[in-house]
């Protein structure tokens, strides 16, 4: 598994990332939020399965916000495992994302 998406409550796009979140996913991660329907108000990146992450993943997350800068969206990163939460914390990602 690499990246899966689903829409919940009609207004939230959930992006499910697989075990490894690294540069191999650059393309499929971008495709996950391409052609975003107008009614989407929130993007949840679900990292419940993710155990490994590198800095390109951080880049992908920030890049998503840049690409979608024109839209009023809430960004959340949800269900992180402790190791992943630590990387996000080190990188101060709480400034740009709601981390649950």
């Amino acid at each position, binding site marked *: 598994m690499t990246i899966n998406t689903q829409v919940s409550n009609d207004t939230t796009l959930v992006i499910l990332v697989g075990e490894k979140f690294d*540069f191999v996913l650059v393309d499929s991660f971008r495709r996950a939020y391409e052609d975003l329907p107008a009614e989407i108000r929130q993007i949840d990146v679900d990292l419940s*399965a993710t155990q490994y992450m*590198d*800095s*390109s993943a951080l880049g*992908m997350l920030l890049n998503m916000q*840049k690409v979608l800068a024109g839209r009023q969206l809430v960004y959340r990163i949800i269900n992180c*495992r402790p190791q992943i939460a630590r*990387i996000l914390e*080190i990188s101060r990602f709480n400034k740009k994302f709601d981390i649950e």
Partner: protein
Amino acid sequence: MLKVLIVDDEEINRIMLAEMLREAGYADCIEAENGIKAIEKAREYKPDIVLLDVIMPGMSGIEAAPLLKATSPECHMPVLFITSLDDEESLVRCLECGGDDFISKPFEKVILKAKLAAHARSRRQSLEIKDKNRSLTYFQQEVERNHRIVEHIFDNALTHNSVEKSYFDLYSQPTTQFNGDLFLCEKSPSGGVYLFVGDFTSHGLASAIGAIPVAQSFSSMTKRGLAVEEIAYRLNALLYSLLPVDMFCVAAIIEFTQKGDQFTVWSGGLPRMALKTSDNSLRHTIDAQHMPLGILSNDEFEQTCQVFHAQAGDTLLMYTDGLMECQHPIHGLLGEEGIEAWFLAEASVSSDTLVKKATEYRGGLPPDDDLTVVQFSCRPFEFEIARNKRIEVPFTLSFHLRAGHIKQAKLIDHLMRIVNGVPGLAVIRSEIFTVLTELTNNAIEHGLLGMCSQMKAEPEGFIEYYELRAERLAKLTEGDIWIDISYPVKQNVTNTGQQGLLEIAVRDNGPGFTETTLKGADDQAFGRGLALVRELSEQVDITDGGNKTRVLLKV
């Protein structure tokens, strides 16, 4: 060929009979002149049919018949009396003492032959039955022996550890009966707990046999702290390859965090789980989202999990369908609603109580399916985290990668598989992955491919960067990367505590890079790699004009 014992005190009769038998095709004859001799010969030669004179000196035929019969206890041995008597009383006595038929004197060849043929038939049938009985007995013993062996393996493979007793309220049938239900419980490296609640199709040994590979594999995967999705995927692949097509395993795989207030669920076909609050209201019901394990191929398999949040004092109920598939003469099927009504009726309804209620519901009859009930009242797990299996011997893993190796898409995966094989490194495998990926990618992208991270400043550039990377990597013909992973660290440690530090050193022979070119602002999509590595590690040294990076990680 059948053996015939001829017992007569008159030699002339014996000779005549033997001759007639030979003509009829029974060449293998034994002779005896009275009852006592007959029994001795019967024991020695094991005849198939006995021709027995009635009146003889010493022991008469009437006395000898039951004793002769006793020499062939497992198998019918026809005894035919030779008699010139024709009064009813004598004939009845002959049959009462165990005889099967008469041959009248004087002998008539045709009758003798026909009677022998008839009795030979029943003897042969009896021998066949004896043979079959013997193989049946053998087979039965074999099955029992196999059961004992499997039982032994079972007990050893599925020994329940101490976690469940203290944290989980479990009802399950005794393991001595082969059980298609499987409950597994393992600590996770991060201090939480993994559960497996499963139910193989059918009953008995056949259904239970699948439990062994599942238990072994589950145990090793949980020790490595794999994600629930990954565990589900791998168990499915395992059972898909092992089980016959009509067999599968209904299962839920759950991981609880150390605090016990969040859990990740993959459920394939298990009855709806229920989570209730401390004041007995239903917080969540958790329906199975997937097909059971062992049905779908790897491509078809869906590993998506659900994540739920709980509060301390909540209770999670999980069970196999044996509990809810109870039929009541009037109220019908119990179902998930019935179970949930009982579950929510009181503050604490033990798993045993639920089983008792289900038994009452079906009118006292024992359940006709295997049945497992597990409850967890949400609270933090407080066992010592096996933080480290100590690393017992010093080691260096040394990799020399040439252009051909560097081009491999799964390079880091291959390296990680080797690193993960070192006991004691599992706990920090996420950190090792991040460090190894950063350093290796820096060596590839900046050292060998001469890429510039500034490209990544713009959204389009970010994608272009990785396209360019792929393009240049494909053309790479020369370049080496050396990776050394050592424990304990080798030298030049500025920190005092050398103990417990793992060294990861990555060197390349490209043009090199300087760290200053890698600094980006907080919101830039690049330049975070080395900063991240610095935060994760104890010490980072960059030498050889940027070609060599050494990182020390706390183990």
